[in-house]
């Protein structure tokens, strides 16, 4: 870590211990999102870190952003994800939007006053995203959108939604991207999904019923929507990897501390090799996934697009997080299974990291596709 990153981490650690950690358990139980935490993170400059200073961002790189996400994730994966998705949406608008769109939508997102959401998945198209069915029919001065988007992170609490809809024929080429805000007529929300984890981050269905969207809200050209959607993908995968690393770090930290303090058979349970080996494996796997995520972020910051490495970082870091958090519950025994200790929540939160931003099965497909290309051209 460079000096700036160390400073970011120190600053954020203080903040999270004071302002996030005390609420993490209760908010998981109540399924409650605290906007004030997000806004505070915004005030500290963490809600649009990779966006240009022209639009209120911090103009920093993904390596720096990963340090921040890792630190937030130690206390709350839910808040880390809210920040990461909102930043991804900003990245899309910055990369593909026109100046009017950037000036109109970015400042309130980079400042953390409002949240951004990304609407690609539908009930019938998850992994197979380009099969989406939501339609955008051309009409006078704009498009009329109909359909429904599923599993939308920050659905209902976000103000700005990047929505992928079909303006043309089947396949990727028929998809266009639009920016919608929550007060637009015809945009409604389904009920809050009940989930295994990530409970402090609301997930809702976004319903589009004869929703008129002016032409000026289209991102890029007609038919570029899938390219827009994929544009945020590499960065999105790295950020999910970073969140997984932060979560793993906390789970290991809790496990070592607990096993040094807990005595059974008249000695700290850390003394037993069965637990030592478990934690040695946890630490090694964690280190390997951290290096992978950091390398992928560094290459992205240097402008070297390496989608294979981004997929590998997401795949490895999230599989490791699942393993480490599961073992952390095991190290804690009975109390680890209760909500008195954070590790059971961490285990529930880890599972979805293997599913979002492309399931880990899809990451394997992507990696294999790159391998084939490397060998066969």
């Amino acid at each position, binding site marked *: 870590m460079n000096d700036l990153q160390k400073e970011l981490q120190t600053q954020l650690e203080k903040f999270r211990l004071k302002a996030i950690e005390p609420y993490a358990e209760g908010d998981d*139980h109540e399924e409650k999102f605290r906007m004030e935490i997000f806004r505070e993170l915004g005030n500290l400059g963490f809600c649009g870190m990779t966006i240009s200073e022209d639009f209120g961002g911090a103009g920093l790189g993904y390596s720096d952003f990963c340090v921040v996400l890792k630190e937030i994730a130690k206390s709350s994966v839910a808040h880390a994800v809210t920040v990461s998705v909102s930043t991804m949406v900003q990245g899309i608008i910055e990369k593909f939007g026109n100046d009017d769109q950037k000036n109109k939508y970015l400042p309130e997102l980079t400042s953390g006053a409002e949240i951004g959401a990304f609407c690609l*998945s539908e009930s*019938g*198209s*998850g*992994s*197979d995203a380009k*099969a989406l069915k939501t339609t955008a029919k051309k009409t006078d001065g704009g498009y009329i959108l109909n359909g429904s988007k*599923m*599993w939308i992170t920050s659905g209902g609490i976000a103000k700005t939604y990047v929505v992928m809809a079909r303006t043309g024929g089947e396949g990727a080429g028929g998809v266009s991207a639009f920016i919608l805000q929550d007060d637009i007529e015809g945009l409604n929300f389904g009920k809050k*999904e*009940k*989930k*295994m*984890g990530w409970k402090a981050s609301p997930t809702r269905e976004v319903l589009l019923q004869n929703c008129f969207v002016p032409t000026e809200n289209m991102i890029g050209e007609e038919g570029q929507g899938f390219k827009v959607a994929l544009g945020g993908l590499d960065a999105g995968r790295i950020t999910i990897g970073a969140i997984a690393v932060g979560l793993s770090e906390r789970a290991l930290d809790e496990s070592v501390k607990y096993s040094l303090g807990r*005595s*059974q*058979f*008249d000695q700290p*349970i850390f003394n*037993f090799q*069965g*637990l030592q080996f478990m934690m040695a494996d946890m630490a090694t796997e964690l280190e390997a996934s951290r290096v992978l995520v950091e390398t992928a972020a560094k290459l992205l910051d240097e402008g070297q697009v390496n989608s294979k490495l981004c997929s590998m970082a997401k795949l490895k870091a999230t599989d490791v997080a*699942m393993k480490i958090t*599961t073992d952390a*519950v*095991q190290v804690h*025994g*009975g109390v*680890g*299974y*209760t*909500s*008195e200790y954070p590790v*059971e*929540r961490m*285990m*529930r939160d880890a*599972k*979805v990291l*293997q*599913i*979002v931003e492309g*399931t*880990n*099965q899809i990451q*394997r*497909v992507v990696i294999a596709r790159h391998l084939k290309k490397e060998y066969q051209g």
Partner: protein
Amino acid sequence: MWYFSDEEKQLKEVCKEFARKEIAPKAEHHDTEESFNIEAFKKMGELGVLGITADPEYGGAGMGCLAATLVMEEFGKACPGLTLSFLAHSILAVNNIQSNASAEQKAKYLPKLVTGEHIGCMGMSEPEYGSDAIGIQTRAKNNGDSYSINGTKMWITNAQYSDIAYVYTRTGDERKNLSTFILEKDKGHFDVGKPIHKMGMRASPTGELIFDNVKVPAENLIGKEGDSVYHMMKNLDIERLTISGISLGIAEACVEQCIKYANERKQFGKNIGEFQLIQKMIAEMATETEMMRNFLYNLCYRYDQGERGPVTAAMAKLQIPKMATKIALDAIQLHGGYGYSREFPVERLMRDNKLNEIGAGTNEVMIMIIAKNLLQEKAV
């Protein structure tokens, strides 16, 4: 090699039907609400399984470990939480009374437990003594015709609903000076602490038993002073085998749900079951489940034939819950976003199953037992 008697075959069918009708429809509700399906529990009394291993003369079914495990498996497919409460009652309380209590004690307590009029639990773990169970500190002081008990028991399944508690206490300073009592709620023998919130098994109430200088008649002592270690050891095998039955049920439910989903869900223009990645997951989880089933049935069958021993039961308890967690995690993964939502049962099954790697002896304690026994055998 195991086989089912006609009676066991019939029991499995009846329990499957009972689980479908009485347990499954309410499983998600009780998980969400952290509540206990007491109606279904009471109906298990009518079904005749609450005293599955108890003697017929006390109203029990007089069946064995294989039969009890089949009930766990079938109920476990529908709602592992409620099944855990069933296990705490029928195995930890009823079966322990059946095999350790006097004829008078059995005649007094078993009939109401077997019908479900009374609910039972067992108290062993304490806040500071989990894996190290022999170290427990709940004290029972001998006053002649009575005992004064002080202490706290932790993670007690059914605590809040129990009329009868089968409890281990310390009656002497030597490590193994432990004695067992039957305690009665309506005689004020125990108080119940606050409920414990858990990751899974939320349909099964968990609480503390608190003994604040309570006076218990000497007639409630089981056997004689110092018998507890013998009592504990005697039934550990059946406890570990039956709890593994819940994990077997969980694995079977996951496989069933995955097959159904892979045949229905379409992505990239075809059923996801046509992708080799998904085929691999299903083929492997089905194979592992089949191994678990045969291993467990076999050990239960041999147990009923009189073949006992701590090593194989600990092996089952180590491996079956561990494999079931892996299967349930894969089942969520196979369902993608839907698997993570509470719309499908797989995330609940995973949360529930994790407990089985911890309760009734953690995986680590199973490893200790297996290794210690194997290494000692070699050393002799």
